[in-house]
Protein backbone atom coordinates (compact mmCIF):
# COMPACT_ATOMS: atom_id res chain seq x y z
CA UNK A 1 0.00 0.00 0.00
CA UNK A 2 1.42 3.36 -0.95
CA UNK A 3 1.38 6.17 1.53
CA UNK A 4 0.36 9.55 0.26
CA UNK A 5 1.69 12.69 1.92
CA UNK A 6 0.21 16.09 1.36
CA UNK A 7 2.92 18.73 1.34
CA UNK A 8 2.27 22.43 1.11
CA UNK A 9 4.70 24.16 -1.22
CA UNK A 10 7.28 26.27 0.62
CA UNK A 11 6.82 24.45 3.92
CA UNK A 12 9.18 22.00 5.46
CA UNK A 13 7.60 18.73 6.51
CA UNK A 14 8.43 18.07 10.15
CA UNK A 15 8.28 14.47 11.20
CA UNK A 16 7.61 13.25 14.75
CA UNK A 17 11.27 12.60 15.47
CA UNK A 18 12.23 16.06 14.24
CA UNK A 19 9.48 17.58 16.31
CA UNK A 20 10.75 15.69 19.34
CA UNK A 21 14.29 16.84 18.79
CA UNK A 22 13.00 20.39 18.34
CA UNK A 23 11.25 20.14 21.68
CA UNK A 24 14.45 18.76 23.26
CA UNK A 25 16.42 21.64 21.80
CA UNK A 26 13.93 24.16 23.16
CA UNK A 27 14.10 22.50 26.55
CA UNK A 28 17.88 22.62 26.55
CA UNK A 29 17.87 26.26 25.50
CA UNK A 30 15.49 27.12 28.29
CA UNK A 31 17.75 25.35 30.76
CA UNK A 32 20.59 27.58 29.60
CA UNK A 33 18.47 30.68 30.03
CA UNK A 34 17.34 29.49 33.43
CA UNK A 35 20.94 29.14 34.61
CA UNK A 36 21.84 32.52 33.15
CA UNK A 37 18.78 34.60 34.00
CA UNK A 38 17.34 32.89 37.08
CA UNK A 39 19.62 34.85 39.45
CA UNK A 40 18.79 38.08 37.61
CA UNK A 41 15.07 37.50 38.07
CA UNK A 42 15.58 36.74 41.75
CA UNK A 43 17.66 39.87 42.29
CA UNK A 44 15.21 42.15 40.55
CA UNK A 45 12.40 40.69 42.65
CA UNK A 46 14.48 41.02 45.81
CA UNK A 47 15.24 44.64 44.98
CA UNK A 48 11.53 45.35 45.09
CA UNK A 49 10.39 43.01 47.84
CA UNK A 50 13.47 42.85 50.09
CA UNK A 51 12.42 39.39 51.21
CA UNK A 52 14.21 36.30 49.94
CA UNK A 53 11.23 33.94 50.16
CA UNK A 54 8.85 36.30 48.37
CA UNK A 55 11.51 37.13 45.79
CA UNK A 56 12.06 33.44 45.10
CA UNK A 57 8.33 32.89 44.61
CA UNK A 58 8.07 35.79 42.21
CA UNK A 59 11.19 34.75 40.27
CA UNK A 60 9.81 31.23 40.00
CA UNK A 61 6.47 32.46 38.69
CA UNK A 62 8.17 34.75 36.21
CA UNK A 63 10.43 31.97 34.95
CA UNK A 64 7.47 29.66 34.53
CA UNK A 65 5.71 32.35 32.54
CA UNK A 66 8.85 32.75 30.45
CA UNK A 67 8.86 29.01 29.80
CA UNK A 68 5.27 29.16 28.57
CA UNK A 69 6.17 31.99 26.22
CA UNK A 70 9.52 30.56 25.23
CA UNK A 71 8.42 30.06 21.64
CA UNK A 72 8.68 33.78 21.01
CA UNK A 73 11.50 34.45 23.47
CA UNK A 74 14.20 32.25 22.00
CA UNK A 75 16.50 35.17 21.34
CA UNK A 76 18.66 35.59 24.50
CA UNK A 77 18.54 39.43 24.65
CA UNK A 78 14.79 39.39 24.19
CA UNK A 79 14.40 36.75 26.86
CA UNK A 80 16.42 38.73 29.42
CA UNK A 81 14.54 41.95 28.78
CA UNK A 82 11.17 40.26 28.90
CA UNK A 83 12.04 38.36 32.06
CA UNK A 84 13.32 41.46 33.85
CA UNK A 85 10.23 43.46 33.01
CA UNK A 86 7.78 40.72 33.89
CA UNK A 87 9.61 39.97 37.16
CA UNK A 88 9.66 43.64 38.10
CA UNK A 89 5.95 43.99 37.44
CA UNK A 90 5.07 40.82 39.31
CA UNK A 91 7.25 41.87 42.23
CA UNK A 92 5.52 45.24 42.38
CA UNK A 93 2.12 43.52 42.38
CA UNK A 94 3.24 41.21 45.16
CA UNK A 95 4.68 44.13 47.14
CA UNK A 96 1.41 46.05 46.86
CA UNK A 97 -0.62 43.09 48.04
CA UNK A 98 1.78 42.52 50.96
CA UNK A 99 1.46 46.18 51.94
CA UNK A 100 -2.33 46.02 51.76
CA UNK A 101 -2.35 42.93 53.96
CA UNK A 102 0.01 44.51 56.47
CA UNK A 103 -2.14 47.61 56.58
CA UNK A 104 -5.25 45.53 57.28
CA UNK A 105 -3.51 43.53 59.98
CA UNK A 106 -2.00 46.50 61.80
CA UNK A 107 -5.17 48.58 61.74
CA UNK A 108 -6.17 49.47 65.30
CA UNK A 109 -2.96 48.16 66.84
CA UNK A 110 -0.74 50.59 68.80
CA UNK A 111 2.47 51.62 67.00
CA UNK A 112 5.39 49.32 67.70
CA UNK A 113 7.92 50.61 70.23
CA UNK A 114 11.44 50.29 68.89
CA UNK A 115 14.10 49.55 71.44
CA UNK A 116 17.46 50.89 70.36
CA UNK A 117 20.32 50.19 72.69
CA UNK A 118 23.33 52.45 72.73
CA UNK A 119 25.68 49.57 71.99
CA UNK A 120 24.04 48.92 68.66
CA UNK A 121 23.77 52.61 67.85
CA UNK A 122 25.71 52.34 64.65
CA UNK A 123 23.74 49.36 63.50
CA UNK A 124 20.49 51.15 64.36
CA UNK A 125 21.57 54.21 62.41
CA UNK A 126 22.44 52.09 59.42
CA UNK A 127 19.21 50.09 59.58
CA UNK A 128 17.23 53.27 60.01
CA UNK A 129 18.89 54.71 56.95
CA UNK A 130 18.14 51.51 55.02
CA UNK A 131 14.49 51.74 56.00
CA UNK A 132 14.34 55.35 54.86
CA UNK A 133 16.09 54.43 51.65
CA UNK A 134 13.57 51.66 51.00
CA UNK A 135 10.68 54.04 51.55
CA UNK A 136 12.27 56.60 49.26
CA UNK A 137 12.78 53.90 46.62
CA UNK A 138 9.12 52.96 46.81
CA UNK A 139 8.19 56.52 45.99
CA UNK A 140 10.36 56.61 42.88
CA UNK A 141 8.70 56.34 39.47
CA UNK A 142 8.84 52.72 38.29
CA UNK A 143 11.05 53.39 35.28
CA UNK A 144 13.68 55.13 37.46
CA UNK A 145 13.49 52.43 40.05
CA UNK A 146 14.03 49.58 37.60
CA UNK A 147 17.08 51.23 36.07
CA UNK A 148 18.53 51.91 39.49
CA UNK A 149 18.05 48.29 40.57
CA UNK A 150 19.49 46.84 37.38
CA UNK A 151 22.50 49.15 37.49
CA UNK A 152 23.16 48.14 41.09
CA UNK A 153 23.30 44.41 40.31
CA UNK A 154 26.89 43.21 40.56
CA UNK A 155 28.64 42.98 37.25
CA UNK A 156 25.92 44.86 35.40
CA UNK A 157 27.21 47.67 33.24
CA UNK A 158 25.07 50.50 31.94
CA UNK A 159 25.37 49.01 28.43
CA UNK A 160 23.85 45.80 29.72
CA UNK A 161 21.02 47.70 31.38
CA UNK A 162 20.42 49.47 28.10
CA UNK A 163 20.41 46.15 26.26
CA UNK A 164 18.13 44.42 28.74
CA UNK A 165 15.56 47.19 28.74
CA UNK A 166 15.93 47.97 25.07
CA UNK A 167 16.38 51.68 25.67
CA UNK A 168 19.21 53.99 24.54
CA UNK A 169 22.24 54.46 26.71
CA UNK A 170 21.46 58.16 27.15
CA UNK A 171 18.03 57.28 28.55
CA UNK A 172 19.60 54.86 31.02
CA UNK A 173 22.03 57.54 32.22
CA UNK A 174 19.37 60.21 32.58
CA UNK A 175 17.00 57.87 34.45
CA UNK A 176 19.82 56.87 36.76
CA UNK A 177 20.71 60.51 37.34
CA UNK A 178 17.16 61.51 38.24
CA UNK A 179 16.69 58.46 40.42
CA UNK A 180 19.80 59.16 42.48
CA UNK A 181 19.04 62.85 42.71
CA UNK A 182 15.48 62.25 43.90
CA UNK A 183 16.66 59.72 46.46
CA UNK A 184 19.26 62.16 47.80
CA UNK A 185 16.62 64.88 48.09
CA UNK A 186 14.33 62.59 50.07
CA UNK A 187 17.11 61.38 52.35
CA UNK A 188 18.92 64.68 52.93
Amino acid at each position, binding site marked *: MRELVLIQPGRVLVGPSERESESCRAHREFEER*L*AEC*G*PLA*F*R*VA*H*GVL*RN*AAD*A*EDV*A*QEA*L*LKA*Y*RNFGRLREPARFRGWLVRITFRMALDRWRSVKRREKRETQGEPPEQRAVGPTVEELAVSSE*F*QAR*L*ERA*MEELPEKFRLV*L*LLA*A*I*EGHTLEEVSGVLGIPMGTV*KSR*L*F*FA*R*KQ*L*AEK*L*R
Partner: protein
Amino acid sequence: MSCEGYRDKLIAALASGDSSLAGDVAVHLGICAECKKFYEAQVHLFGAIDSGVRAMVNEAVPASLSPRVRAQIAEADMPRRVWGVSWSFAAVAVAAVLVISVTVLKRSRDNTNKVADRSPAVGQRASGATGVRAVLPQVAAVGPKRRSPEVQTATAPREAVKAPEVIVLAEERAAFARFVTDLPEEREVAVAFTRPATDAEDEAVEIALLQIDELDVKPLESSNP
Protein backbone atom coordinates in the same frame (compact mmCIF):
# COMPACT_ATOMS: atom_id res chain seq x y z
CA MET B 1 27.98 82.40 41.29
CA SER B 2 26.40 81.96 44.72
CA CYS B 3 27.05 78.98 47.02
CA GLU B 4 23.62 77.61 46.03
CA GLY B 5 24.66 77.49 42.39
CA TYR B 6 27.89 75.62 43.23
CA ARG B 7 25.97 73.18 45.43
CA ASP B 8 23.54 72.39 42.60
CA LYS B 9 26.49 71.72 40.34
CA LEU B 10 28.20 69.38 42.74
CA ILE B 11 24.93 67.48 43.43
CA ALA B 12 24.46 67.06 39.71
CA ALA B 13 28.01 65.73 39.41
CA LEU B 14 27.51 63.26 42.24
CA ALA B 15 24.09 62.14 40.96
CA SER B 16 25.53 61.39 37.54
CA GLY B 17 28.27 59.33 39.17
CA ASP B 18 30.99 61.70 38.02
CA SER B 19 33.68 61.92 40.70
CA SER B 20 35.62 64.68 39.02
CA LEU B 21 34.37 68.21 39.70
CA ALA B 22 34.41 71.07 37.24
CA GLY B 23 37.28 73.55 37.72
CA ASP B 24 35.23 76.44 39.09
CA VAL B 25 33.42 74.17 41.56
CA ALA B 26 36.71 72.70 42.79
CA VAL B 27 38.13 76.22 43.24
CA HIS B 28 35.04 77.28 45.20
CA LEU B 29 35.28 74.28 47.47
CA GLY B 30 38.88 75.29 48.23
CA ILE B 31 37.81 78.70 49.51
CA CYS B 32 34.32 77.96 51.00
CA ALA B 33 34.40 75.80 54.13
CA GLU B 34 30.59 75.59 54.28
CA CYS B 35 30.33 74.25 50.72
CA LYS B 36 33.23 71.86 51.35
CA LYS B 37 31.39 70.49 54.39
CA PHE B 38 28.18 70.19 52.34
CA TYR B 39 30.10 68.42 49.58
CA GLU B 40 31.56 65.87 51.99
CA ALA B 41 28.13 65.20 53.43
CA GLN B 42 26.73 64.67 49.93
CA VAL B 43 29.55 62.31 49.00
CA HIS B 44 28.72 60.29 52.12
CA LEU B 45 24.99 60.35 51.31
CA PHE B 46 25.40 59.21 47.70
CA GLY B 47 27.80 56.50 48.84
CA ALA B 48 25.23 55.28 51.36
CA ILE B 49 22.51 55.31 48.71
CA ASP B 50 24.64 53.25 46.33
CA SER B 51 25.62 50.71 48.95
CA GLY B 52 22.02 50.51 50.21
CA VAL B 53 20.63 49.83 46.75
CA ARG B 54 23.37 47.28 46.07
CA ALA B 55 22.47 45.51 49.31
CA MET B 56 18.86 45.32 48.15
CA VAL B 57 19.61 43.53 44.89
CA ASN B 58 22.74 41.51 45.50
CA GLU B 59 21.21 39.02 47.87
CA ALA B 60 22.54 35.47 47.54
CA VAL B 61 20.35 33.51 45.14
CA PRO B 62 18.78 30.50 46.90
CA ALA B 63 19.94 27.17 45.53
CA SER B 64 16.36 25.93 45.50
CA LEU B 65 15.30 28.37 42.77
CA SER B 66 16.24 26.32 39.70
CA PRO B 67 14.95 22.96 41.03
CA ARG B 68 11.69 24.63 42.00
CA VAL B 69 11.31 26.12 38.54
CA ARG B 70 12.04 22.74 36.94
CA ALA B 71 9.48 21.04 39.16
CA GLN B 72 6.90 23.67 38.28
CA ILE B 73 7.62 23.22 34.60
CA ALA B 74 7.21 19.46 34.88
CA GLU B 75 3.93 20.00 36.71
CA ALA B 76 2.74 22.49 34.13
CA ASP B 77 3.64 20.15 31.25
CA MET B 78 1.68 17.25 32.70
CA PRO B 79 -1.90 18.54 32.30
CA ARG B 80 -1.03 19.83 28.84
CA ARG B 81 -0.15 16.30 27.74
CA VAL B 82 -3.32 14.91 29.30
CA TRP B 83 -5.33 17.60 27.57
CA GLY B 84 -3.65 16.74 24.29
CA VAL B 85 -4.64 13.09 24.64
CA SER B 86 -8.24 13.92 25.61
CA TRP B 87 -8.53 16.35 22.71
CA SER B 88 -7.44 13.66 20.27
CA PHE B 89 -9.98 11.26 21.79
CA ALA B 90 -12.68 13.88 21.46
CA ALA B 91 -11.74 14.51 17.84
CA VAL B 92 -11.94 10.80 17.03
CA ALA B 93 -15.31 10.51 18.80
CA VAL B 94 -16.74 13.48 16.92
CA ALA B 95 -15.50 12.08 13.62
CA ALA B 96 -17.06 8.70 14.40
CA VAL B 97 -20.41 10.27 15.29
CA LEU B 98 -20.36 12.27 12.08
CA VAL B 99 -19.63 9.21 9.93
CA ILE B 100 -22.37 7.19 11.63
CA SER B 101 -24.90 10.00 11.24
CA VAL B 102 -24.13 10.44 7.56
CA THR B 103 -24.37 6.69 6.94
CA VAL B 104 -27.69 6.36 8.76
CA LEU B 105 -29.12 9.35 6.93
CA LYS B 106 -27.99 8.00 3.57
CA ARG B 107 -29.45 4.56 4.24
CA SER B 108 -32.76 5.99 5.34
CA ARG B 109 -32.92 8.09 2.16
CA ASP B 110 -32.09 5.04 0.03
CA ASN B 111 -34.86 3.06 1.69
CA THR B 112 -37.37 5.82 1.07
CA ASN B 113 -36.39 6.01 -2.57
CA LYS B 114 -36.68 2.25 -2.98
CA VAL B 115 -40.14 2.28 -1.51
CA ALA B 116 -41.12 5.17 -3.69
CA ASP B 117 -39.91 3.28 -6.75
CA ARG B 118 -41.68 0.07 -5.78
CA SER B 119 -45.05 1.40 -4.61
CA PRO B 120 -46.64 2.08 -8.06
CA ALA B 121 -46.28 -1.59 -8.99
CA VAL B 122 -47.76 -2.59 -5.67
CA GLY B 123 -50.57 -0.17 -6.22
CA GLN B 124 -51.41 -1.54 -9.66
CA ARG B 125 -51.39 -5.10 -8.52
CA ALA B 126 -53.52 -4.31 -5.54
CA SER B 127 -56.05 -2.34 -7.49
CA GLY B 128 -56.39 -5.15 -9.96
CA ALA B 129 -57.14 -7.68 -7.26
CA THR B 130 -59.05 -6.27 -4.35
CA GLY B 131 -59.19 -2.55 -4.68
CA VAL B 132 -56.65 -1.89 -2.04
CA ARG B 133 -55.03 0.58 -4.44
CA ALA B 134 -57.46 3.23 -3.41
CA VAL B 135 -56.16 3.07 0.13
CA LEU B 136 -52.48 2.68 -0.71
CA PRO B 137 -50.77 5.62 0.82
CA GLN B 138 -48.14 7.78 -0.82
CA VAL B 139 -45.04 8.14 1.31
CA ALA B 140 -44.39 11.78 1.86
CA ALA B 141 -41.82 11.89 4.56
CA VAL B 142 -41.85 15.06 6.54
CA GLY B 143 -39.03 15.70 8.93
CA PRO B 144 -39.47 17.97 11.86
CA LYS B 145 -37.44 20.75 10.23
CA ARG B 146 -36.83 20.14 6.54
CA ARG B 147 -38.22 18.03 3.75
CA SER B 148 -35.99 15.76 1.78
CA PRO B 149 -35.78 17.05 -1.79
CA GLU B 150 -35.21 13.52 -3.19
CA VAL B 151 -38.41 12.24 -1.63
CA GLN B 152 -40.32 15.20 -2.95
CA THR B 153 -39.16 14.49 -6.50
CA ALA B 154 -40.03 10.83 -6.16
CA THR B 155 -43.54 11.53 -4.96
CA ALA B 156 -44.29 14.39 -7.29
CA PRO B 157 -45.64 12.37 -10.28
CA ARG B 158 -47.86 10.33 -8.00
CA GLU B 159 -49.69 13.39 -6.79
CA ALA B 160 -51.42 13.38 -10.14
CA VAL B 161 -52.90 9.93 -9.39
CA LYS B 162 -54.78 11.52 -6.46
CA ALA B 163 -53.79 8.73 -4.09
CA PRO B 164 -54.11 9.49 -0.38
CA GLU B 165 -51.02 11.13 1.07
CA VAL B 166 -49.68 10.12 4.43
CA ILE B 167 -47.49 12.39 6.46
CA VAL B 168 -44.85 10.34 8.27
CA LEU B 169 -42.36 11.59 10.84
CA ALA B 170 -38.78 11.36 9.73
CA GLU B 171 -37.85 8.85 12.44
CA GLU B 172 -40.78 6.59 11.49
CA ARG B 173 -40.14 6.83 7.76
CA ALA B 174 -38.13 3.62 7.46
CA ALA B 175 -40.67 1.58 9.44
CA PHE B 176 -43.52 2.95 7.40
CA ALA B 177 -41.68 2.18 4.21
CA ARG B 178 -41.29 -1.44 5.32
CA PHE B 179 -44.96 -1.58 6.16
CA VAL B 180 -45.93 -0.32 2.71
CA THR B 181 -43.56 -2.77 1.05
CA ASP B 182 -45.15 -5.70 2.93
CA LEU B 183 -48.69 -4.58 2.16
CA PRO B 184 -49.43 -7.04 -0.68
CA GLU B 185 -48.68 -10.00 1.57
CA GLU B 186 -50.80 -8.71 4.43
CA ARG B 187 -53.69 -7.29 2.53
CA GLU B 188 -56.28 -7.91 5.26
CA VAL B 189 -54.23 -6.04 7.79
CA ALA B 190 -53.85 -3.19 5.36
CA VAL B 191 -57.55 -3.04 4.73
CA ALA B 192 -58.25 -3.15 8.43
CA PHE B 193 -55.79 -0.35 8.97
CA THR B 194 -57.15 1.85 6.28
CA ARG B 195 -60.89 1.20 6.57
CA PRO B 196 -62.71 4.08 8.17
CA ALA B 197 -64.14 3.41 11.60
CA THR B 198 -67.87 2.59 11.84
CA ASP B 199 -70.10 5.39 12.99
CA ALA B 200 -72.18 3.04 15.16
CA GLU B 201 -71.59 3.38 18.85
CA ASP B 202 -70.42 0.43 20.90
CA GLU B 203 -73.25 -1.85 22.03
CA ALA B 204 -73.93 -2.03 25.73
CA VAL B 205 -72.71 -5.15 27.48
CA GLU B 206 -75.55 -7.32 28.83
CA ILE B 207 -75.45 -7.97 32.54
CA ALA B 208 -77.38 -11.03 33.85
CA LEU B 209 -77.39 -13.34 36.84
CA LEU B 210 -75.42 -16.53 36.64
CA GLN B 211 -77.82 -19.51 36.29
CA ILE B 212 -76.86 -23.04 37.29
CA ASP B 213 -79.28 -25.79 36.18
CA GLU B 214 -78.47 -28.55 38.65
CA LEU B 215 -76.81 -28.29 41.96
CA ASP B 216 -75.96 -31.48 43.85
CA VAL B 217 -74.85 -30.87 47.43
CA LYS B 218 -72.86 -33.70 49.15
CA PRO B 219 -71.53 -33.66 52.70
CA LEU B 220 -67.77 -34.11 53.14
CA GLU B 221 -66.71 -37.57 54.20
CA SER B 222 -64.56 -36.37 57.08
CA SER B 223 -67.51 -34.57 58.65
CA ASN B 224 -69.39 -37.91 59.21
CA PRO B 225 -69.36 -39.17 62.81
